[in-house]
């Protein structure tokens, strides 16, 4: 599939900007997304299905979000598509997490 993810040779991307002494993860949520991705059993989805979920991201969203945000997006999409939970359950989990965060603030 041709799309924004196919970046080889594309112009206008600017300098590379490597980070000095870069940590493995830049935020705790990145650790958690990485671990979730690795821990979900391989029988739920395969790497090509994950790849396809990334390739279906909108170009603007793809370029404006970080690497582990791509993963988060794909995990949400795939779990729903694979029938592991309903979109409504995910939305309920969002409001629970928000309430918990407010409650502990």
């Amino acid at each position, binding site marked *: 599939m041709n799309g924004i*993810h*196919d*970046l*080889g*040779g*594309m*112009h206008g*991307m*600017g*300098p*590379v*900007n*490597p*980070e000095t002494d*870069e940590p*493995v*993860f*830049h*935020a*705790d*949520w990145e*650790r*958690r*997304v*990485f*671990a*979730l991705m*690795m*821990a*979900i*059993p391989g029988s*739920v989805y395969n*790497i090509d299905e994950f*790849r396809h979920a*990334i390739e279906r991201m909108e170009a603007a969203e793809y*370029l404006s979000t*970080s*690497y582990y*945000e791509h993963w*988060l997006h794909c*995990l*949400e999409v795939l*779990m729903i598509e694979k029938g*592991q*939970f309903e*979109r409504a*359950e*995910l*939305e309920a*989990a*969002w*409001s*629970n*997490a*928000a309430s*918990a*965060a407010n409650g502990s603030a």
Partner: protein
Amino acid sequence: MADHDHTEPPSDTALRVKALESLLLEKGLVEADTLDAIIQLYEHNVGPQNGAKVVARAWSDPDYKARLLADATPAIAELGYGGVQGEDMVVVENTSDVHNLLVCTLCSCYPWPVLGLPPVWYKAAPYRARAVSEPRAVLKEFGVEIREGVEVRVWDSTAELRYMVLPERPAGTEGLGEDELAALVTRDSMIGVALVEST
């Protein structure tokens, strides 16, 4: 497509991740202990220190180097490294005539067992776009000047096949043992965006 029935995800990414994690735990798809073990492994145990040992062995043992270049996966396994994202490995050797550079233009494929998880710049648009079209300019940004007449080879990694660069052994390291050599080898030198310096 308007999804009027749908709530937008929270703008706070950490909250969104917490929600997903709690749902996956509740469904029994993942277990908390497993998540912690995975994080521990990739944050502390797997990293370029592994690849550096492979390089140091190749510099010290010509037979090992021959095995590594002929069929990298089993040669790397001799040192105990292998598994996820390193199932099929190819090692490419830098020489006085050839400089090798790794990229994954489509995403982030990278040899995890020997280099750990890739840095952000490796996964970001500028490097992926430019490494294949103007590798010498990219190398210059990393402070590496490749002489005219030296061929630059760029290897585009895939989900199935991962590369690692065997950097050139620097002059003045003849007397060093494997541990001392490994200490000189950087992550960037095994991606091909740096050379190994003797001090």
